[in-house]
């Protein structure tokens, strides 16, 4: 069995990004920066109806707009749209201005249909159907274990709570889209994606082309968070426009488009009943949950939808459980995978219930968790966190903080069981006689530092410096690798690079006669290659990576009980991630997970309007992301477990944040705000300060 070196120079240390300079100088070319020869601008026309029968789409006038070179239908002239923002047609022209004019020149005739955009309305039997052939809300999946009713009877304390989470949208800073060039040789797409291979396959399928005729390139891309695995309607339309116009077409979504049509995290409405014995041992758990994945919940998700189910009772061992869950379809854009799908809402619900139960039991919330969380690593993490955070000194009974601005603390745990490596990860390295070496892997960097990880591992294995390693990723012409998601990239590529390096050293030894080609011997050994470069292929190998990963987080907040404003003062994340590959980029990911979780806790929410069926906040003005002024001091404790090999960290870091913050708010003010985001309005309402409204 292979193993990672015990003494390391780069692995587990802090290495700055190998592509940092490209990113801070503007030289890094993102998919949206591609200016292919003769490129055209592309834009999409979207439905302004939440539901309608489209009876005609006339592109004639659009094609007459000066500068317009192509116009195509998204589907056909007649079909049913099921959400506000669904694609109708697309145009390509010599400028954005031409496209804007052309979109307004397209004539669409439609018969609007009844719609429903909010979960509670959609559940009703007489609600307009999102999909004609079935109800919006189907019989929930029920899962029973033990005798819940009897177990609740034996509990010393039982709480019942209602916890809800909104639809959250990914909103990566670079929108979805690509530049597509369709020539006789096939299609080349410079795509903003986290899965070049899945986009290649998707485009080939949609365009009926052989895989070998489609090439996807993603040199740099501006974030994905789970929403950017597929070719997407926008990718296919760009290619079709390119074929029509006989020129490359760059079609990037607008921020408005992005908010409506390319994925989101489903909502959840969790009715939880939780009971424990007097010593805190959980005895019974009952969950009824529903949420919406938009149109994805009721039928064909058309782009990778997903259910709204959440793992329950999540981290905790409960002998008697009853879980009933169902998704409800609404006329809104479909859900997609979003950083640890299902886990952040699950964590928020159960962790809120745990704290409510701890209050009822008169127990310290951490003690209640230690009592019921069977995971030894999290046990350790809680204990470390308690110490580092000063939990025992800071913990007060809920609501007992003096003054108008009250402080509170809270904690929550995370698991990410689905991570781990993709065994189908391949790569190659070309070693040149002058000692230069280039790695090529068909993966992509979504911002986690993939290039840097490859360079760090290679430098360690070869006895070189990371900056001596050239790394090429983001091209389907390279040996294939997995999509970047689910905390899988690092555990997939690190062993692959290990394998390539081991093989390279072996072959160098054979060819050069130098026993150990590492370090000082590297250049002499390479020189012996003569005139031919050496190319070595490798793949993921067993024994160097694993899963799952988890962690716990602690939050300290201040709540202004007169204005309702919540200020997060401090976050502590204690996370396990196996063998740390690069401390610097790891820290960045944990910070990022926590901050995204803060957005979920306090600011973010897709707002759909019942009356008009449109999204009211498809922008950054009213879909509020945390900014630098909102972000507190973040402390990180990394649990180093090299014996477990490389593990991904992207998902677990965002899972427990909202629960920890919500618990801290409840601890501060003595009442629970059970609905995310925890806005000033909701805090004031929870405190009973909002006067009743007489209609």
């Amino acid at each position, binding site marked *: 069995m292979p193993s990672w070196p015990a003494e390391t120079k780069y692995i587990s240390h802090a290495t700055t990004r190998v592509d940092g300079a490209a990113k801070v100088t503007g030289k890094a070319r993102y998919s949206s*920066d591609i200016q292919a020869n003769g490129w055209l601008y592309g834009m999409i026309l979207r439905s302004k109806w939440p539901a309608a029968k489209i009876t005609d789409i006339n592109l004639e006038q659009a094609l007459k707009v000066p500068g317009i070179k192509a116009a195509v239908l998204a589907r056909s002239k007649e079909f049913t749209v099921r959400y506000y923002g669904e694609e109708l047609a697309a145009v390509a022209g010599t400028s954005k201005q031409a496209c804007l004019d052309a979109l307004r*020149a397209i004539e669409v005739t*439609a018969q*609007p249909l009844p719609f429903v955009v909010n979960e509670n309305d959609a559940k009703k039997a007489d609600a307009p159907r999102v999909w004609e052939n079935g109800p919006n809300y189907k019989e929930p999946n029920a899962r029973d274990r033990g005798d819940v009713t009897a177990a609740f009877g034996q509990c010393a304390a039982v709480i019942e709570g209602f916890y809800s989470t909104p639809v959250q949208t990914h909103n990566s800073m670079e929108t979805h889209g690509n530049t597509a060039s369709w020539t006789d040789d096939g299609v080349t797409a410079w795509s903003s994606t986290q899965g070049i291979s899945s986009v290649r396959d998707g485009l080939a399928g949609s365009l009926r082309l052989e895989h070998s005729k489609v090439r996807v390139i993603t040199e740099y891309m501006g974030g994905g968070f789970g929403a950017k695995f597929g070719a997407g309607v926008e990718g296919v339309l760009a290619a079709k426009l390119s074929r029509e116009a006989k020129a490359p077409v760059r079609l990037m979504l607008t921020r408005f488009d992005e908010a409506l049509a390319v994925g989101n995290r489903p909502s959840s409405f969790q009715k939880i009943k939780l009971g424990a014995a007097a010593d805190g041992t959980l005895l019974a758990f009952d969950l009824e949950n529903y949420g919406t994945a938009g149109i994805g919940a009721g039928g064909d998700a058309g782009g990778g939808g997903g259910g709204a189910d959440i793992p329950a009772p999540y981290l905790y061992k409960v002998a008697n459980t009853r879980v009933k869950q169902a998704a409800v379809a609404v006329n809104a854009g479909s859900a997609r995978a979003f950083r640890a799908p299902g886990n952040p809402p699950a964590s928020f619900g159960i962790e809120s219930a745990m704290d409510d139960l701890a209050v009822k039991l008169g127990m310290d919330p951490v003690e209640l968790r230690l009592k019921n969380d069977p995971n030894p690593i999290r046990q350790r993490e809680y204990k470390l966190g308690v110490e580092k955070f000063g939990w025992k000194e800071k913990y007060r009974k809920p609501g007992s903080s003096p003054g108008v601005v009250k402080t509170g603390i809270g904690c929550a745990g995370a698991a990410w069981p689905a991570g781990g490596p993709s065994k189908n990860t391949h790569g190659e390295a070309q070693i040149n006689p002058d000692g230069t070496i280039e790695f090529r892997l068909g993966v992509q960097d979504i911002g986690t530092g993939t290039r840097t990880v490859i360079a760090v591992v290679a430098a360690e294995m070869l006895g070189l410096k990371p900056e001596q390693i050239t790394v090429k990723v983001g091209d389907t012409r390279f040996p294939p690798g997995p999509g970047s998601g689910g905390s899988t990239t690092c555990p997939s590529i690190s062993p692959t690079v290990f394998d390539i390096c081991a093989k390279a050293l072996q072959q160098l030894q054979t060819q050069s006669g130098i026993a150990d080609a590492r370090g000082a011997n590297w250049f002499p050994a390479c020189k012996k290659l003569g005139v031919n470069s050496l190319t070595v292929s490798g793949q993921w190998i067993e024994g160097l990576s694993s899963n799952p990963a988890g962690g716990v987080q602690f939050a300290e907040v201040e709540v202004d009980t007169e204005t309702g404003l919540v200020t997060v003062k401090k976050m502590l994340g204690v996370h396990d991630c196996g063998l740390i590959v690069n401390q610097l980029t790891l820290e*960045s990911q944990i910070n*990022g997970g926590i901050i995204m979780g803060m957005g979920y806790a306090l600011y973010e929410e897709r707002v759909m309007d019942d009356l008009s069926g449109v999204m009211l906040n498809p922008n950054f003005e009213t879909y509020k992301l945390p*900014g630098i002024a909102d972000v507190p001091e973040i*402390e990180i404790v990394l649990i180093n477990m090299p014996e477990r090999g490389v593990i991904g960290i992207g998902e677990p870091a965002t899972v427990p944040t909202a629960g920890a913050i919500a618990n801290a708010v409840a601890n501060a003010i003595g009442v629970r705000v059970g609905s995310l985001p925890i806005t000033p309005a909701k805090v004031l309402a929870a405190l009973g300060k909002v006067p009743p409204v007489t209609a």
Partner: protein
Amino acid sequence: MKEPEPEKFGAHSRRTFLKSLGTVAATTATAQVKSVAAELEKVNAEKVIGPEAVPVTLKVNGEKLKLLLEPRVTLLDALRNYSSLTGAKEGCDRASCGACTVLINDAPVYSCQKLAIEAQGVEITTIEGLAKDGKLTKVQSAFIEKDALQCGYCTPGFVMSVTALLKKNFHPTAADVKHACAGNLCRCGCHPHILQAALKAAGVGHAAKTEIVNYA
């Protein structure tokens, strides 16, 4: 719930270019005149131009950029799509994310919410104009050193905001940095490292908050 009615959209009549220029010049001519040259310049300046593309000269990173643009083209659009300066990014096109931040006479502005035609006669600095002869600025180096970026799409905007701050304020506090960067969004969540990078670039130290604990 309001019952929606069948309707049509699109099919707009194309714009008309019927503005008369004569009245404008005549009005201006009645204004007080200091010199013929000044008056001429004024008349020219007050000419109604467009809506078709007109010559626009921008001074970007010290170099003149001569473009033919419709008046409605934004500065960001001009940089990214009418020239090859793609360093400033489009994140929202609505003055709310900061990815498009450039400096105009050293002050950070959103290039997406400024018309290119009105950005003439000023010094525009984009991310491409910071590193001279390939040498990174202190701010750029600090961003790399502190890993103040992940996907990097918001990075040019943040670098511009921090650069502008440090030109005016040599010893910023954390609060100053937050005030200066509040108009830049980052979805990867690099804010703590961005703050550290800004302070580092200003020569302010920062104690690391990360601890590594061995499990075994």
